[in-house]
């Protein structure tokens, strides 16, 4: 299945794709593993994950067409 990927802030410098192909039934942990394989620099970075605009606090299932965003610490204002 295809996952839409969005990176923000500092992570835009590491992540260069906006689509990731994963086996059907993959979850957010699987996505992170795949991304770290593609972009080893990601492992050292601090970020939260949002699936379809909701941040998650534990491993969460993904579906075809889910939009996953990687959010480094916010620094607005």
């Amino acid at each position: 299945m295809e996952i839409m990927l969005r990176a923000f802030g500092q992570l835009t410098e590491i992540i260069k794709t906006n689509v990731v192909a994963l086996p059907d039934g993959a979850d957010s942990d699987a996505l992170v593993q795949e991304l770290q394989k593609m972009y080893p620099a990601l492992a050292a970075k601090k970020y939260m994950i949002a699936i379809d605009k909701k941040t998650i606090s534990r491993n969460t299932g993904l579906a075809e067409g889910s939009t996953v965003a990687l959010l480094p610490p916010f620094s607005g204002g």
Partner: protein
Amino acid sequence: MNDRKPKNIFTQGAISPAFIGESIAKHSSQKNIGAHSLFLGQVRSDMIDGKTVAAIDYTTYEEMALEKMQQMRETLFEKYALTCMHIHHSLGRVAAGDISLFVFTSASHRRAAIDACAAIVEQIKAELPVWGKEIFEDESYHWKTNTAI
């Protein structure tokens, strides 16, 4: 669930002092308002590793930020007896000395306006998906980090 389209809070570039003055003036017809509390974030020309910040370039995850802001707004109106609240956050480049955040709460009495303004500023800093990239005078940069002060 609230399906209403969230109110936009983002504005391209700096927020002008004249716009702030006009926002204040618009409230003179609301004669039940007794107190306004305003917070303005101004870009500091911080010195980082010997280089001076000339501007901050702001980006956001807009769809998520507007939904989040809408939730924060609803929670705030449940907690405080506000007449109204207006939030404006810059996107793109804002030069040092210019204003990038304008929070404006109004109420009949001062405690609600002051407390709500202080509370929403903390929430914006901590929970709104916005990122600031501090641009130095030589165009190199540093990703901004927010502090609790």
